[in-house]
C-alpha cells in the first residue's frame, strides 16, 4: 500500500513539475494567461530537475522487469514502450511542422514551446525506462558488489542533478571532470553483459534487432532535441545538461555494448546451445528415473539423449538384462539410421572388441583401423560405450559419425555422464523392485503370523478344579509349536501340545494341520455304546493322528506331541507321549518333583500299522495341589552365551521352588529364569510352556 501511494505521489509531483516547466517555457519572452514573463532561472531548473528526478524515482520503484520474464521479453517491452513514445515524438513534430506551414494565428512560440516540453518529457520517460531495463540486465546473476556499484552510479547521477540545481555556475573543468568520471563508470557498468550468454542463437538475433530499435528511438529524440535547442524561434530555458547527457550516454552505450557482444557471440551460440541441450537431456534422464519408470524407458531415454546431443549419424543400443533380474525381460535393441544388415554386422564385430577393450572405445578413423568396414555407409568415427556397473553388464551403446574425428573428449565426457546415470538408474530400479518383492514377502509372513496367532486358543478353559497358564513364543515370525484345549462333556478336559520338526513357514503349516486333526478326532462318536468310548483314548488318538499325518507330512518331517485326557470325576488323567518332552510333575503328597518316564515314538516316523506298538496309554491319579508342567524343547534347549543348554535339571529345580504358587505365577517364575539364563540372545527355538495346577473342587457357584 505504502509503495503504491509513494509512486502515485511521484507521478503527481512529476505532473506538477511538468506543468511548471510548460508554463515557464511558454512564458519565456512573453506573458501568458496573466503569468509573468521570463521566470527566474532557478525555478525553471528546479522544475526540470524535479520532473526528471520523480520520473526516474518512479521507474526505479517499478518491479524488476526480469522477474518472471525472459531477456527477450524485457527488451520487447522496452521496444514497444519506446515505439509508443517515439510515435508521440513524431506526432508532436508533425503538428509543429503543420502549424508552422499553416502560420496559424498563435502567440509567438506557443506550438514550439508546447511541443518541445512534451518531447522533453517523453525523452526523459524513455531514458528512465531504458535505464531501469538495463539495471535488470546489469544485475542479472550479479553479486552484492554489482548491486552496490549500481547504487553508487544512481547516487552519482542524482548528485549530478543536484550539482546543476544549486551551483549553476559550474566551472568548466569540474563539469567536464564529472561528466568524464561518470561516463567512465557507465562504460565499466556496460561490461556487465552476462545475460547474453544465456540466449540461444535465435534469441540473440532478436535481441540485436530490438536493441537497434531502441537505439534508433533514442537517436530520433536526440536529433529532435538538438534541432529544437538550435532553433532560434524557441526561447526555451536551458536543459539539465549534465544529468541528461550522462543518462543518455549510459543508455546508449549499454545498448551498443550489448549489441556488439550479442553480434560477436552469434557464431559460438550453437556451442552454448549444445551444452544446454546436454544439460536438458541429462535432466530428462534423471526425471525419468525419479518417476520410477521401466527399464525400456530408461534405455530409450539414454538412446535419444545420446543421439541428439552427440548428433550421431547412426547409432544402436543393445540392452542386456540378466533373466534373474527383477526389472523385466531384456528390451529389443534400439537403432537409429541403421539397416538391419548393418546392425548384425556391428553386433558380431563388436562382441570381441568389448571383452578385449575393457572400457569405452573411441575410434576417430575407422578406415585406417579397418574396423566396421562392411557397413552400407562409409562411417569414419565410432564410439562404443559399455553400460557397466561393478557387478553387472547392462548392454552397450554404439554411436557412428560419417566425418573423421567425430568424437572429442568433450563428447566422451558427456556420454560417460549419460551411461553412468543410466546404469545407476537401472540399478536403482532393480533395488526398488527387490525391496518391493521382499516387502511383499514380509507382509505375507506377517499375515501368516497373524493367522497362526488366531490358531492359539485365546480363551483358556476355566473351572474350579484346575488352573491353567500358557506361554508361547516363536523364534521366527511363525513357529512350529502348538497347543490346544477342549472341554469335553462331564468334567473332562483334553490337552494337546506338540512341536513340528524344523522351523518357520513349513513347520507353521503343519501346526495348522495338527490343530485340524485334533478337533476332527475329538468329535463325539455317535456309535459308541459306553460314554467312556465316545472319545478316543490317548493311545488311539496318537495312532489315528499318525495315520492322518502319513498323508500330509513329507518323509523327513515328524511331529512330537503329548496328549492328556483329564477326568475330574475319576480324579486322574490318561495320557500318551509321542516323542515329546517328558512331562514335569509335582507330587503334593510325596512333596516331590519328577519327570514322567514313558516311552513313545514321534508322529510321522513310522507310517504303517506298527506305530501302535510304539506308543502307550498311561494313567495317573492326581491330588489337589499337584502341578503339571508341559513344554516344548525350546525351554530345556534354550542356550546362554557360552552355548550351554538350560537343561531339564534346572527346570525341575525351578518347580521345586515355586510349586505352591498359582499356575500363572509358576509359569512366570520359570519363564523369567529361562529369560535370565539366555539373556540378550535371540530365541534358538520356539518356546511353549503350559502349567496346569489341580485344586480341591470348589462347590459350583
Amino acid at each position, binding site marked *: 500500500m505504502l509503495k503504491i501511494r509513494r509512486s502515485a505521489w511521484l507521478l503527481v509531483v512529476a505532473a506538477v513539475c511538468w506543468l511548471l516547466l510548460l508554463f515557464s517555457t511558454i512564458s519565456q519572452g512573453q506573458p501568458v494567461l496573466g503569468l509573468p514573463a521570463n521566470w527566474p532561472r532557478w525555478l525553471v531548473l528546479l522544475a526540470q530537475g524535479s520532473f526528471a528526478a520523480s520520473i526516474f524515482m518512479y521507474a526505479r520503484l517499478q518491479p524488476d522487469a526480469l522477474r518472471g520474464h525472459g531477456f527477450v521479453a524485457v527488451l520487447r517491452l522496452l521496444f514497444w514502450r519506446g515505439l509508443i513514445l517515439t510515435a508521440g515524438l513524431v506526432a508532436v513534430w508533425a503538428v509543429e511542422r503543420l502549424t508552422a506551414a499553416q502560420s496559424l494565428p498563435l502567440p509567438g512560440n506557443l506550438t514550439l514551446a508546447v511541443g518541445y516540453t512534451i518531447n522533453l518529457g517523453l525523452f526523459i520517460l524513455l531514458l528512465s525506462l531504458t535505464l531501469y531495463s538495463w539495471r535488470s540486465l546489469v544485475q542479472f546473476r550479479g553479486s552484492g558488489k554489482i548491486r552496490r556499484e549500481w547504487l553508487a552510479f544512481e547516487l552519482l547521477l542524482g548528485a549530478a542533478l543536484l550539482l546543476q540545481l544549486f551551483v549553476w555556475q559550474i566551472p568548466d573543468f569540474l563539469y567536464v571532470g564529472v561528466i568524464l568520471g561518470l561516463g567512465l563508470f557507465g562504460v565499466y557498468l556496460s561490461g556487465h553483459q552476462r545475460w547474453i550468454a544465456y540466449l540461444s542463437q535465435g534469441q540473440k538475433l532478436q535481441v540485436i534487432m530490438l536493441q537497434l530499435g531502441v537505439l534508433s528511438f533514442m537517436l530520433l529524440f536526440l536529433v529532435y532535441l538538438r534541432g529544437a535547442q538550435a532553433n532560434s524561434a524557441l526561447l526555451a530555458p536551458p536543459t539539465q545538461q549534465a544529468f541528461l547527457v550522462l543518462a543518455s550516454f549510459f543508455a546508449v552505450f549499454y545498448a551498443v555494448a550489448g549489441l556488439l557482444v550479442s553480434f560477436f557471440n552469434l557464431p559460438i551460440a550453437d556451442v552454448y546451445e549444445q551444452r544446454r541441450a546436454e544439460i536438458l537431456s541429462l535432466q530428462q534422464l534423471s526425471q525419468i528415473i525419479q518417476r520410477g519408470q521401466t527399464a525400456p524407458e530408461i534405455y530409450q531415454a539414454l538412446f535419444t539423449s545420446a543421439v541428439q546431443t552427440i548428433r550421431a549419424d547412426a547409432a544402436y543400443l543393445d540392452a542386456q538384462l540378466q533373466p534373474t533380474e527383477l526389472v523385466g525381460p531384456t528390451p529389443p535393441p534400439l537403432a537409429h539410421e541403421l539397416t538391419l544388415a548393418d546392425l548384425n554386422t556391428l553386433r558380431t564385430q563388436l562382441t570381441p572388441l568389448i571383452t578385449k577393450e575393457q572400457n569405452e572405445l573411441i575410434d576417430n578413423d575407422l578406415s585406417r583401423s579397418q574396423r566396421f568396414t562392411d557397413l552400407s555407409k562409409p562411417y569414419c568415427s565410432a564410439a562404443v560405450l559399455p553400460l557397466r556397473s561393478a557387478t553387472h553388464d547392462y548392454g552397450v551403446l554404439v554411436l557412428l559419425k560419417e566425418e573423421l574425428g567425430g568424437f572429442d573428449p568433450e563428447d566422451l565426457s558427456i556420454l560417460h555422464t549419460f551411461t553412468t546415470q543410466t546404469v545407476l538408474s537401472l540399478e536403482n530400479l532393480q533395488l526398488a523392485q527387490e525391496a518391493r518383492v521382499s516387502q511383499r514377502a514380509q507382509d505375507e509372513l506377517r499375515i501368516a503370523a497373524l493367522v497362526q496367532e488366531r490358531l492359539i486358543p485365546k480363551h483358556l478353559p476355566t473351572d474350579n478344579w484346575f488352573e491353567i497358564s500358557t506361554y508361547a513364543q516363536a523364534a521366527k515370525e511363525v513357529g512350529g509349536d502348538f497347543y490346544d484345549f477342549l472341554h469335553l462333556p462331564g468334567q473332562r478336559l483334553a490337552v494337546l501340545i506338540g*512341536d513340528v*520338526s*524344523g*522351523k518357520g513357514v513349513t513347520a507353521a503349516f503343519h501346526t495348522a494341520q495338527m490343530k485340524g486333526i485334533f478337533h476332527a478326532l475329538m468329535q463325539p462318536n455317535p456309535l459308541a455304546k459306553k460314554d467312556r468310548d465316545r472319545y478316543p483314548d490317548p493311545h488311539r488318538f496318537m495312532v489315528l493322528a499318525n495315520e492322518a499325518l502319513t498323508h500330509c507330512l513329507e*518323509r*523327513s*518331517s*515328524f511331529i*512330537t506331541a503329548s496328549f492328556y485326557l483329564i477326568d475330574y470325576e475319576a480324579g486322574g488323567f490318561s495320557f500318551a507321549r*509321542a*516323542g*515329546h*518332552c*517328558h512331562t514335569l510333575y509335582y507330587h503334593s503328597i510325596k512333596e516331590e518333583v519328577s519327570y514322567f518316564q514313558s*516311552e*513313545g*515314538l*514321534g508322529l510321522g*516316523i*513310522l*507310517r504303517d500299522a506298527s506305530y501302535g506298538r*510304539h*506308543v502307550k496309554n498311561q494313567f495317573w491319579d492326581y491330588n489337589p495341589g499337584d502341578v503339571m508342567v508341559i513344554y516344548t524343547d525350546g525351554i530345556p534347549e534354550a542356550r546362554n552365551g557360552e552355548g550351554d543348554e538350560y537343561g531339564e535339571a534346572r527346570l525341575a529345580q525351578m518347580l521345586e521352588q515355586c510349586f505352591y504358587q498359582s499356575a500363572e505365577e509358576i509359569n512366570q517364575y520359570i519363564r523369567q529364569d529361562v529369560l535370565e539364563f539366555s539373556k540378550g540372545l535371540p530365541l534358538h527355538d520356539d518356546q511353549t510352556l503350559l502349567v496346569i495346577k489341580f485344586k480341591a473342587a470348589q462347590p459350583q457357584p
Partner: protein
Amino acid sequence: MEPIMKVTAQPTDTTLTLILDGELDASSAVVLDTELNKPELLKYKKVLIDCQRLSYISSAGLGVFISHLQRLQDSNVKLVFYNMQEKVFNVFEILGLDSLMTIVPTEQEAQAV
C-alpha cells in the same frame, strides 16, 4: 554358511562306516542326506554311524535318518549307531527312536550286530 559338520565315509566289503564330526542341524543335514542318498549304499549289509564326535543333533538332523529308515529296512541294510554321547542319545530316546533303531555303545558291538 559353512556346514559345521564333517562326514567321512569308510567302506569295507560289507560295511560302510560314516563318521560324523560336529553338529547335525538343518544346514549340515544336507551333507549327510547326500551321503545316505547314494544308490550304492544299498549294496552294503550294514551302515555304521560313528557318533563319537557328534556333539548335537536337531530335529532336521533326526529327519534325515528317519527319511532313510524305511528304504534301508526294505533293502535289508542294517543301520547301527555307536559311540553316541549321552546328550545325543537323550534326543533319540525322547523321540522314541531307540526302539526303532539299533544304538550300541561300542564299535565292537556294532560290528557284531
